[in-house]
């Protein structure tokens, strides 16, 4: 049953209809984060509600859609075997002499009255038209491009292999994908591997009016290019800690359409977000009594160093809060583990004019935090405010990272095989559609009667041209007379 073309067409249409249904509303998988329950009802009303209730928002993962694809694959497979092998046998074991009735059925059919045909010259004409000629007594069979008949089967093999790989590929262990958002200077481990990745620098270029290329609309700036200079590391020790020992593997800028490739792992530039954050601040340490300035020292907001030296002072980082806040008890805490939205440094300062046990000093790089959390009053209360001042000289000492770059890390070992399968299919299509299997039979049927028949798998016009060349040879002989003729026109 699976081998019939009718069933095949039915299954193609079934898959087509399934595909179409799935495109009516956005599929759940199209969202980066799954939309909330009731999304379809809210956005698309009644129809959307029914759509989601029927599970059509997950059409392409649904059992019925996958089943129809599997059935189609099975049908392609069985039909190919059922038809391909007999066809191969028939074409391999072709008889050179065919019955008159079969000859008469061919689209081109001619009957001549002649004692002899110019046999050698006919064969020559056929061969020069690139036909392979076989003879048997007074009969010949000329054939060309027989391999074109294998086209559909080659194509089908490619399709089946492609679908098979797709199904194998759906095993989650085989492929992986993760999205990593990194602000400039930030690094993070790639889950499931020993690799770490760092966004060293992110630059964005805009289409500017007046530059070469097409004019830019007034209403919106369109990015021309965005690029993340990425460093890929392997972690060699202390991988679970904040201070891993990393070795640089590769440093490379990544842009859209040009991913970083490393041993089967691809890192793509996916997108960016505008997320202004302080990356580092260069500060000076001022002794308020002597009015002496020391430093500068550089404080970064990602994994800051533990100790600093500024003149006679040794500054130790006692605590660091990337996003400083006060909890319900009024105790300092941080809202996020590593996003420096409101960084705060708690320093222990020794040496210089500091007492034995040192001073404790709290420093907020952001002006707004200085006010909000009252840095001066705080430091006055803990006894350091009158002695020490830590500050940046000007805004140019504050390094701000504006963009967070989103990268996608992906491994997919099946890709070359999928491409291979697609190319097999393509080769099959070209064989089947751009070449035609053509055959010509010439035979003596009775005393003084000859028959010429020709058949083409598609493209009757091309066949007629070939026939005309042969006829030109045969019919120039004055003893040859046509007594029956069908030339393939309709």
């Amino acid at each position, binding site marked *: 049953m699976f081998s019939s*073309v009718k069933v*095949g*067409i039915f299954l*193609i*249409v079934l*898959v*087509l209809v399934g*595909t*179409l249904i*799935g*495109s*009516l509303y956005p*599929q759940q*998988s*199209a969202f980066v984060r799954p939309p909330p329950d009731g999304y379809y009802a809210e956005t698309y*009303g009644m129809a959307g509600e029914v759509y989601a209730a029927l599970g059509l928002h997950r059409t*392409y993962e649904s059992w019925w859609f996958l089943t129809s694809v599997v059935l189609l694959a099975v049908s392609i497979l069985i039909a190919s075997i059922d038809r391909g092998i007999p066809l191969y046998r028939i074409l391999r074991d072709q008889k050179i002499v065919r019955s008159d009735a079969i000859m008469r059925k061919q689209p081109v059919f001619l009957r001549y009255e002649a004692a002899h045909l110019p046999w050698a010259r006919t064969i020559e004409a056929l061969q020069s038209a690139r036909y392979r000629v076989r003879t048997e007594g007074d009969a010949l069979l000329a054939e060309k491009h027989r391999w074109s008949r294998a086209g559909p089967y080659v194509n089908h093999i490619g399709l089946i292999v492609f679908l098979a790989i797709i199904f194998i590929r759906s095993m989650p262990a085989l492929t992986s*994908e993760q999205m990593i958002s990194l602000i400039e200077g930030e690094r993070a481990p790639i889950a499931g591997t020993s690799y770490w990745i760092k966004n060293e620098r992110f630059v964005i270029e805009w*289409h500017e009016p007046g530059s*070469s*290329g*097409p*004019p*830019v*609309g007034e209403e919106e700036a*369109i*990015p*021309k*290019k*965005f690029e993340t200079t990425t460093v890929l590391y392997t972690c060699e020790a202390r991988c679970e800690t904040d201070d891993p020992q990393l070795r640089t593997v590769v440093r490379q800028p990544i*842009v*859209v*359409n*040009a*991913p970083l490739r490393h041993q089967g792992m*691809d890192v*793509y*530039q*996916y997108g960016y977000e505008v997320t202004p954050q302080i990356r580092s601040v260069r500060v000076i340490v001022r002794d308020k009594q002597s009015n002496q300035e020391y430093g500068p020292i550089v404080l970064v907001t990602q994994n800051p160093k533990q100790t600093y030296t500024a003149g006679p002072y040794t500054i130790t980082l006692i605590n660091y809060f990337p996003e400083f806040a006060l909890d319900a008890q009024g105790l300092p805490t941080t809202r996020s583990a590593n996003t420096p939205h409101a960084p705060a440094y708690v320093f222990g300062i020794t040496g210089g004019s500091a007492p034995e046990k040192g001073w404790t000093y709290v420093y907020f790089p952001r002006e707004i935090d200085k006010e909000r959390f009252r840095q001066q009053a705080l430091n006055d209360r803990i006894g350091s405010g009158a002695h020490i001042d830590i500050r940046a000289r000007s805004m140019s000492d504050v390094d701000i990272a504006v963009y967070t770059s989103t990268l*996608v890390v*992906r491994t997919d070992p099946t*890709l070359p095989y*999928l*491409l291979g399968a*697609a*190319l097999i*299919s*393509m080769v099959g*299509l*070209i064989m089947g*559609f*751009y070449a035609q299997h053509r055959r010509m039979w010439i035979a003596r049927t009775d005393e003084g009667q000859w028959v010429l028949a020709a058949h083409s798998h*598609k*493209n*009757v*016009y*091309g066949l007629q041209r070939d026939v005309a060349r042969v006829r030109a040879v045969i019919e120039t002989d004055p003893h040859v007379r046509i007594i029956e003729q069908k030339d393939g*026109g*309709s």
Partner: protein
Amino acid sequence: MQTLYDWSHGALIVAWGGYVVSFVLFVWAKMGKPTMRSARMERWAHVSVIGALVAHIVYFGLRWIASTFIPVSNFFEFIVFLSMMCAVAFLIVYRIAPSGWLGLCVTPVIVILMAYALAFPTEATPRIPSLHSVWLYIHVTTAAAGEAFFAIGFAAALMLLIHVIGTAPRPRKRDVWAIETVLVCVLIVVGFIASTFAFRLSGYEARFVSEQSTVVYAMPPIAAPYGYDVARMDAFLGMTQPLTTTPSWMKGVQAGRKWNTVLWSVSTGLILYGLLRLLARRPLVRALGPRLQGIDVAQIDDMSYRSIAIGFPIFTLGALIFAMIWAQIAWNRFWGWDPKEVWALITWLFYSAYLHVRLRKKYEGVSSAWLAVIGFVIVMFTLVGVNLVIAGLHSYAGV
């Protein structure tokens, strides 16, 4: 730079004129009585297509130089490229089987496609980073080449249907109704083109404002956008206020403008149809069919099929394989069930079904001609409708 754009645009208009001329010559050659002159006319029509194609290529080259990248990045450029491919595809099929009938049905398709493209903004648009890829252009151009052959298949099939249904002694009502619907759809496209150009020439403008945004109409508002107030509106035939408002469920800033354009296109198309029908005093197909006398149905059927068979591998390569390669590079997944991808797949499945249907002798002729027509409707929906109706990653195409 601007002069180069102007020159290329000029070449495009010349090309368009060339296709119009060849259409007229094909009509002259095939729809009159066959004489010695009509054969010569057909040769001239063929030459005229070649000349128009040369101008078309000049447009393409100049615009490529002016904008520094291959001009297939926005909707206008793409459709113009598609029509260029149609001319190429026509010349290829014409070489295989020279038939003036093919020219007669293909040239109007090219003319309409080009005029349709010109109804959209013709300025080159800056490209977002995912469009900076050689693969994109390989994908788009190859897919368009495949679709061009489907267009030839469509044109031939439509002509075959008009002839067969138009001259049948007792045509089935359903068939007449169906073919008239297709003709009405073609006239709606013509209506869209006509109304766009008419209002563009007259410089019509109406502005609507809401708290968030402003919407500008280039056509008199049959339907004002939902939730907007009239800021300024040119009068049109004494009409100073919008007639109706767009239904509230139509989302999106431009939904009102699009809906208004649809209303104008449909009404202009229907008026055109009504006028033609009054003139013919019978269904259009019954008026056109007999004018196509002398058509070789089997030959046209074969040409329609052959065009699709030639186009199918090209389409597979361009719209699926190259598309997947590009998607893998640009979006890091070769397939994402994006509406445009889905519809390319639907197109491919449909034409696969068509090619399998053709394996059975009894579906040759009228039934498979219908499939060839529907197939091209799917192609156009994939190119135009998806952007209009379903938004996805491809919405940069700017419809």
